[in-house]
C-alpha cells in the first residue's frame, strides 16, 4: 500500500521559509500571491496489513512534530 503523509505547519505558526518563497515569487513578478506556507510530503510504501492506528502512531511519534505541525494521511 502506498501512503502519502502531508506535514504542514499549524495555523498561527510563523513560517520563515514560506515567507521567503513568497518574497521570491514577488520578485519574479508574480502578482497576487497572498500567502505561502511550506510543508513536507512523505511518500511511503507499507505492508497492506498496516492498520490505521500504526500509521497514525508513525506520524505522532516521528513524522510530524505535533507542537508545530499537523499531518494528513492519504492512502493511494
Amino acid at each position: 500500500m502506498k501512503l502519502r503523509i502531508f506535514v504542514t505547519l499549524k495555523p498561527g505558526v510563523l513560517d520563515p521559509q514560506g515567507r521567503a518563497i513568497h518574497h521570491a515569487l514577488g520578485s519574479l513578478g508574480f502578482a497576487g500571491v497572498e500567502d505561502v506556507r511550506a510543508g513536507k510530503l512523505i511518500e511511503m510504501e507499507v505492508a497492506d496489513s498496516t492498520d490505521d492506528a500504526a500509521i497514525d502512531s508513525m506520524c505522532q511519534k516521528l513524522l510530524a512534530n505535533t507542537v508545530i505541525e499537523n499531518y494528513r494521511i492519504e492512502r493511494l
Partner: protein
Amino acid sequence: MKTAVIVFPGSNCDRDLAVALGAVTGVRPTMVWHGDTALPDGIGMVAVPGGFSYGDYLRSGAIAARSPIMRAVVDAAGAGLPVLGVCNGFQVLTEAGLLPGALMRNAGLNFVCRDVALTVGATDTGFTRGYTPGETIRIPVAHHDGNYVADDATLDRIEGDGRVAFRYAEPVNGSARAIAGVLNPAGNVLGMMPHPERKIDAAHGGTDGRRLFDGLLAMVGA
C-alpha cells in the same frame, strides 16, 4: 564529578563540550555513542552537544531524539539527573519531549554565527546559580534553526514558572519572547541555543560560559 557527552552521527560540538567539562571538573567526560542503551554509572550530569545530528534530516534533532541512548537520557532526566542540551542538543531535547516548544528556521533565514548578549533569567537552578538575575552575559551562537516557538499558553506557563533561563538581549533569530534557553519544570534539564562551552577560557574571549559549568559543579558538590 563524572560527566557524559552524547555523540550522534553529525555531532560537531561534542569535543568542545568534553574539553569544557574536563576543564571545569578535572575529569574527562565519557563519550557515549547514540546507539548505546545506558549511561555510565555515577555521572553527575549528561550533555547533549551541538552539531547536525543525522544531517538535520526530517527536522533538526528529530532522528537523534529517537535514538536508543535518548531513552536512557529521558529516564535519567526523570530521575533528576542534570541534562544540558546546547544548540542541536536543545533541539534534540525538545524533540524528545523533555522541554516544551520547538526550534524553527531563524526568522531572517540566515545562519547566525556570532557572540550575542543574553539576559539571565532564572538563577535558582544548578545551571544558572553562577549568575545574578538580570545580568547580561556574552556567549556565541551558531545556528540556523534557533527560532524558539511555542503556543501562548506554553510561553505564559514557562515564564510564570520562572523557567526562562536566558533571553536574547538583542535581535538574533526571531525567538518567541526572545527565549534563548528554557528549563523543564523540575529545573534539572536546560536547553539553550548559545554555546557556553565556547566561552570557558579567557583566551577565547571570555569566561561567561564557564560559570554555567562551575555552578553545576558547585550544586552537585563534587
